C-alpha cells in the first residue's frame, strides 16, 4: 500500500493511503516500523485512510508499542469519524493520543 513519509524538523509525518485491513496491514506495519527510531516523534496521519479493520487496529497498536519500547512517541492525526468510533467502541482509542490536525502542539508530545 502507498505510505507517504516526510521528515520535517525532527517530526516524522507518515500518511498511509487507502484502507488498512488484513491485506494491507502487514505492509503498512513494516513500512512504519522502519521509521520508528529511538526517541522519534511520529505523526501518523490517517486523513486518507477510509477504513481500519481489526487487523489495521492491531497494526497501529503494534506500532505504538514498538515506539514505546524505543522511547519514541506516536500521535494519530485527522482520524475520521468512523475509525474513531470503531477505536472507541473496541477500547483501542484509550491507547492513543489523537489530534484533529497534523499541526501537533508541543504539549501533546508530553501526553503521547
Amino acid at each position, binding site marked *: 500500500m502507498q505510505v507517504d513519509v516526510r521528515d520535517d524538523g525532527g517530526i516524522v509525518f507518515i500518511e498511509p493511503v487507502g484502507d488498512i485491513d488484513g491485506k494491507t496491514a502487514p505492509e503498512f506495519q513494516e513500512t512504519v516500523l522502519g521509521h520508528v527510531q529511538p526517541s522519534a516523534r511520529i505523526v501518523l496521519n490517517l486523513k486518507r485512510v477510509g477504513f481500519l*479493520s481489526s*487487523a489495521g487496529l*492491531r497494526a497501529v*497498536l503494534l506500532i505504538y508499542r514498538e515506539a514505546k519500547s524505543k522511547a519514541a512517541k506516536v500521535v494519530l492525526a485527522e482520524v475520521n469519524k468512523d475509525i474513531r*468510533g*470503531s477505536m472507541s*467502541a*473496541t477500547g483501542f482509542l484509550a491507547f492513543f493520543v489523537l489530534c484533529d490536525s497534523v499541526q501537533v502542539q508541543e504539549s501533546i508530545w508530553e501526553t503521547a
Partner: protein
Amino acid sequence: MGDSLNVQRIDVQPTHEYQHYKIRPGNPYPFGASLVPGGVNFSVFSHHANYCVLVIFEKGGQEPLVEIPFRGMFMKASTEEPVWGEFRIGNVFTMTVLDLDHEAIEYGFRIDSGFPSARAGQPAFHRFDATKVLLDPYTRAIGGRDVWGQAPNWNAPFQHRSRIVFDDYDWEGDRPLEIPLEDLVVYEMHVRGFTRHPSSGIDAEEAGTFSGMRQKIPYLKELGVNCVELMPVYEFDEFEHSRWDEQQRRWAKMNYWGYSTVGFFSPKAGYAATGRMRDGTMVADELKSLVKELHRNGIEIILDVVFNHTAEGNEQGPTISYRGIDNATYYMLTPEGYYYNFSGTGNTLNCNNPIVRDMVIDALRYWASQYHVDAFRFDLASILGRDPWGAPLANPPLLEALAYDPILGKCKLIAEAWDAGGLYQVGSFPAYGRWAEWNGKYRDTLRRFVKGDPGETGAISQAIQGSPQLYQGRGPTASVNFVTCHDGFNLADLVSYNDKHNEANGEDNRDGANDNASWNCGWEGPTEDPAILALRQRQMKNVMAMLLVSHGVPMILMGDEFAQSKFGNNNTYCLDTEINWLDWSLRHRNQGYYRFVTKMIAFRKAHPVLRSKDFLRHTDYVGSGYSDISWHGTRAWQPDWGGRVLAFMLCGRHAKGGTATDDFIYVAMNMYWDALPFELPRLPDGTRWRVFANTSMPSPEDVFEPGSEPELTDQAGCLVGGRSVMILVGRSALQ
C-alpha cells in the same frame, strides 16, 4: 536460544491445490476455524455424514468464491498432477487453506450422507440437505445480522454466516474478579434495553450496544451493584418469529430477549456498535473491552446462556447449522424422529450426548478464557440433566463435568433449575458443591408475604436465611434470591396489577404466567390516587429491604431500581419498544425511591453479618450472649409464626462465621395493614439502637446513610407502620 524460538514450522506448505486454492490436511482440534501460520484451519464434526464441502464466500457475497470438498480429486501442490485426497480424521472433516485473507471471507459447509432426505414438517433422524450452506457450530463470529433490526435479504440462501476471529486482545492484566458469591449484588439486564432509550444520553450509533453499556458503568457503580447478569448475548436472530406492522411501519414483534441461540461461540453482532463494520474481531473486541472496564470497576459479569435449545425450531423449522450437520447427534428425538420439546420452543439440545456435552464445555471454556466471563446462568438448566430420551439423570454427566472443569474452576455456575417439560428442581438440582440456583420459591414466598397473605412467616424466615430448607449442606450461596426477573412482572407492576396485560404481544393475552402473586394495592394499573401511589412505593421498598437483608445472593432486575413499569405485561419477550428500554428519566422522577434502593445496597455491602457463606446456626458460638439469629414478633423473643408479622435480629459478632465483627441488625417486617408497636430486644450495655430504614416514612427520612443513622428515641420499642419494614442497627454509643 533465540534461534530456537524462531524455528519455522514444516507444515505450512500446501500439499494440494483446488481451483488455485492451496490446501493441506488440517488439524481436527480445535473445532471451527482457527488462524494458523500461513492460513486458516477448518474443522467440523459429523458422525453420520459421508461428504462435506467447505464453502467460502467473499464477505457479504451471495455466490461462493469456491467450494472445496474434503474428499475428491485435487492437484498435487505446484504441479498439474491430479491426485486423490481425503481430509478427514475419524468423524472430523478438517483442512487448512493457505493464503486466505481471513478478514475478507465468510464460510460455511455443505454436508451430505447416504440417508434419504427428510421432508419439512415430517419426522426424521437425519436432516442432511446438500443444497443448504450450514453455519459452523464452532464459529466465533457470525455475519448476517450485523446491525440490530436491519432487515436482511430474505432470499439469500446463507443467512447466518461464519466468520473468522483474531482471538488476541490486550487485557492489560485483567482477570476474572472472583468475588465471593455471598458478596455479590446482581443486576439482571438486557444489553440493548439498557441504553436504547433516548433518555440514556448515548449517541444513536452506540445506543443499545456493548459500547453504550460501557459508557454507563459509572451509573452501575453509583447504584452499587457489583455484578451484571446479561440476558443472552450469544448470536441470535432478532427476526425469528417477527411480525411487521404495516400500519405503524415498524416491527410489532421481534425476538427481543434472544433466548434462541444461533451460535454458542459468537457474540451478538447486533449488540455491537461495530457490528456495522462487519468485522467479527471488532465485535469480539468491543465485548472484551466492556468486560475489562467492568472488571476495572469491580463489577463481575454473568452471561445468561441458552444451551437447552437452538433457533432451528421443530420439524418445520429452518436449517441453520446443527440439524444439517448431524441432527441425530445434536437434538433429542422421539422414537419416531420428532423433536422432543422440553424447552417449549420446538427442539431440545441433546446435552448429554458426548459430542454435544463437549461442545457446551468448549463454549463455556471459550467464554471464560477468551472473554474473562466470571459466571454463567443456565436457562432452563434442568434440560442439561436429561438423558438423550428426556429422562432426568441422577448423575448428569454434563452438570458434573461443568462442576469439575479445570478452566471453569472459579466460575460461578447458576441454574434456572426447571424446564418447560415439567422438571422442577429448585432445591434438588445436581449441585456437586458448585451449582447455585435461581430460587423461584424465594420469589413466590416473598411476593405472598409482602402482599399480605397470612401464614407466610415460617416460609419467610427460611427465605431470609438463604432457604436452608432447600439448600442444607450447600449453604445460602446456593440461593440466588430474586423477587422479579425478566420473566414475569417487574417490581412496579407487581404492586400495580393483579392480572397480566399482555395484549401488546399479539397473542390475545394467552401468553405469560397467570399466577403472579401480585397485588395492585386497590386499583388495576395507573392511578393518580396519592394513597395508592404511596402504598405501592412502600411495597416496593419493602421488597427491596427484605431482598437486601436476606442471606443468599440478591438479584435486582434492570428498571426496578427506579420503578419502571411495563404496563402490566409480564412477558415482554418480543417487544423492541420503550416498554423494554430503560427510561433513565425515572431515575430523577422517582429519585426518593431510587435513593432508597441505593442505600439498601450500600447497607448490605457495609454489613458482613448479612453475607455469610454458611447457614446461620441459631446458637451463640462466639460467646456474645446472643445467638447469631433470633426471631421476634411484636413482643421481643416471641415470634408469631401464623400471622403477617415477623422480626429478626442478627448478632454482628457472628458475622462471616465469627471471623468478622459487625453491628447488631434488627429487622421488623409488618405486613399487617395497621401500624403495630414492636418491643425491641435489649442490647448489651453501651450499645444503642439506631434507625437505618423505615419504609413507612417519606423520603428522605425513609433511609439513612449507612454509618450515620440517627439514634432511636425509645430504645425499648418502636412503632412500625402498616405494611412497612423497619431496619435498626445496634452499635456502641461511642461509634
